[in-house]
């Protein structure tokens, strides 16, 4: 097919021949100024009907109506011809015969340009050359448009795939399993690198993280994959929050390009002990709203993750005592940075005003979303918002997926065995022995029946041994809000500077036909339990109360650091009911506050 195609419409053969001659004699001047042999194709159609037929096959770049055809053609035919051309513009020229006996007075209006007869070959060639340049220009424009269209379609497809992947990342979460959590995470925010994850630890604590990767688009969002996989693989195994955070920072620093990082809030809520631990690394301050109307902003105390290879996780975690009715609000900067038509950010002040005005009606979540949408000039919907009711009853009922998966193993035999684990100062400074121990137990068929109780009891006893025994911390410090914070600062400080000490954990299990017994003994290098527990130490008493709810027996002696806890079970009983009973027991036992 010729590179430049001209369709001549003319009924008079000699007129057509003259035009053909004129066109073929033309030498197209290429952009470089070189004269190239013209690659021009010419077709002649005697009338408009043939022209329309030829059009589709020949695909002309230019249509010339000879003098006779031009004088006779109807507007409708020209319109039809233009429609056959599709979107690419094909100029139509009329020959205006100045030598004809009757020269039309009005210039033709349906065409794009005219050629006057008698022909001036240089003028005709100039016109053809300029039309050809115009055609090439529009052709390259069309090609670019098509390429853009293809890229855009690919891009949309990728986004759809990504949205599905990121949607599935949330499948492991327990976000929808409790009315305590309300969240809004817009698809656009997800594709820009926002992520939200939540799960339970084996001992029934809720852990939740809201993160925001720096940067735009999918590149920012890919980091969510390793982050969530660390979260969902380590948390349900009982690794401590600091350990998981440390692993996340290490991983992100290893894989992210230098200019990318992740701002993150992670919180761990122990609903049984009403204890909230939170780390804010570069996110806008979450806000704790108390029923008294007090608003507490939890400012960032850590660099975003992935910036430095080292971290200060332990010293940056904030400890808070949860009071009845406390609600926590978390958000990413999409809300703060939503702009109105004047370019003003929504900002923290407006958020605080909304929370303050809300009182105790608990409508703040919807009001914030509504206010941000009303404020934003463009409907950009880059919003992530989480509301957590910290004292919701449903949190005491574990929805841990690990426990559900273990359900089919509940009936198995546990067997007769014993094991002992002793950790000394070096491990106590940083390591986290419980997940490994629980990991071993999780492998045993039948162990699922006491998994959660055991995790709670072990956690309680180990913490007790470490904090009061080895580190010599006095629980009564925790009685005031300031003291609560000081206690945990002191804990981090003493733990990192620990020179000498040990904790030993032994487990022995015996199982018979009727049932079994698991005996847990924890000892430490400390001076042992005080003779009389001070009446002020109510908070410390809570640990023991909790032990009684999950264990059948708890024994300890003043002056000794040895604590023994016993968990018993019957083989014949219906395991599911037992689990229910345990959970109810936990809910109903009044814990001293």
């Amino acid at each position, binding site marked *: 097919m010729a590179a430049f195609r001209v369709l001549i419409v003319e009924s008079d053969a000699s007129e057509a021949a003259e035009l053909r001659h004129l066109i073929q004699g033309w030498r197209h001047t290429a952009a470089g100024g070189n004269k190239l042999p013209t690659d021009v194709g010419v077709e002649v159609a005697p009338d408009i009907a043939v022209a329309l037929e030829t059009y589709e096959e020949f695909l002309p770049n230019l249509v010339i109506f000879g003098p006779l055809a031009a004088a006779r053609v109807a507007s409708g035919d020209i319109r039809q011809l233009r429609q056959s051309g599709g979107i690419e513009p094909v100029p139509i020229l009329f020959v205006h015969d100045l030598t004809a006996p009757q020269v039309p007075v009005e210039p033709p209006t349906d065409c794009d340009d005219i050629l006057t007869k008698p022909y001036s070959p240089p003028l005709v060639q100039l016109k053809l050359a300029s039309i050809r340049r115009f055609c090439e220009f529009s052709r390259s424009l069309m090609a670019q448009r098509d390429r853009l269209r293809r890229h855009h379609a690919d891009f949309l497809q990728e986004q759809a795939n990504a949205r599905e992947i990121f949607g599935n990342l949330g499948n492991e979460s327990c976000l929808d399993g409790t009315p305590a959590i309300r969240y809004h995470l817009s698809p656009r925010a997800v594709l820009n690198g926002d992520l939200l994850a939540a799960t339970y630890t084996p001992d029934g604590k809720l852990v939740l993280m809201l993160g*925001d990767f*720096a*940067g*735009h688009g999918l590149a920012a969002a890919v980091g969510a994959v390793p982050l969530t996989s660390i979260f969902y693989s380590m948390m349900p195994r009982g690794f401590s929050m600091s350990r998981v955070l440390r692993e996340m920072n290490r991983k992100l620093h290893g894989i992210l390009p*230098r*200019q*990318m*990082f992740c*701002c993150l809030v992670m919180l761990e809520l122990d609903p049984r002990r009403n204890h909230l631990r939170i780390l804010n*690394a*570069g*996110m*806008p*301050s979450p806000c704790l709203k108390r029923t008294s109307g007090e608003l507490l902003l939890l*400012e*960032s*105390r*850590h*660099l*975003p993750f992935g*910036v*430095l290879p080292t971290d200060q996780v332990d010293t940056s975690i904030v400890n808070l005592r949860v009071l009845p009715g406390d609600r926590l609000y978390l958000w990413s*900067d999409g809300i703060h*940075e939503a*702009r109105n038509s004047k*370019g003003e*950010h929504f900002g923290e002040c407006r958020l605080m005003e909304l929370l303050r005005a809300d009182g105790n009606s608990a409508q703040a979540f919807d009001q914030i979303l509504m206010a941000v949408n009303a404020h934003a*000039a*463009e409907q*950009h919907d880059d919003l992530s918002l989480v509301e957590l009711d910290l004292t919701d009853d449903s949190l005491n009922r574990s929805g841990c997926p690990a426990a559900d998966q273990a359900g089919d193993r509940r009936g198995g035999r546990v067997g007769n065995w014993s094991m002992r684990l002793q950790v000394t100062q070096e491990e106590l400074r940083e390591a986290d022995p419980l997940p490994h121990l629980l990991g071993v137990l999780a492998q045993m068929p039948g162990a699922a029946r006491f998994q959660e109780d055991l995790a709670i009891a072990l956690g309680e006893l180990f913490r007790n041994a470490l904090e009061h025994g080895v580190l010599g911390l006095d629980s009564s410090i925790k009685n005031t809000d300031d003291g609560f914070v000081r206690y945990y600062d002191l804990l981090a400080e003493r733990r990192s500077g620990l020179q000498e000490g040990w904790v030993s954990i032994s487990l022995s299990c015996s199982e018979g036909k009727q049932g079994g017994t698991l005996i847990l003994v924890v000892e430490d290098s400390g001076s042992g339990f005080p003779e009389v527990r001070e009446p002020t130490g109510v908070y410390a008493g809570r640990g023991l109360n909790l032990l009684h709810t999950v264990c059948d027996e708890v024994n300890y002696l003043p002056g000794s650091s040895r604590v023994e806890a016993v968990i018993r079970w019957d083989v014949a009983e219906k395991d599911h009911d037992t689990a229910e009973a345990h959970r109810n027991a936990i809910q109903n036992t009044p814990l001293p506050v």
Partner: protein
Amino acid sequence: MVVSDRYDSRVTSEVSESGDALIIRVAGNFDFNMHREFQRAYRNVSPPPRTFLVDLSETDHLDSAALGMLLLLRDYCVEVASEGVHPQVELMNANSHVSHILSVSNFDRIFSIR
């Protein structure tokens, strides 16, 4: 994001009077749209100065992409340090909004701010 903003933003740079510092001034919105200009501003100086002074006096807003660019500049200093001097990065004259963003992200821990 309001698209028209980017047209008001720009990066300028000049050598300080003492001659040992390069002052990079970012006016308007310091965000992803600035990244080429910002990179050009510090990469095209040979030999590299003793100090890169990022002047934020005319910066209205700074987003996480801008923080990323500052990290790249910090990395660049380590990169050129192999040729001799290790340049320092200092941020200065941030308005209260911008310094709030810097402190929220704890970037005051890795950059000296004055």
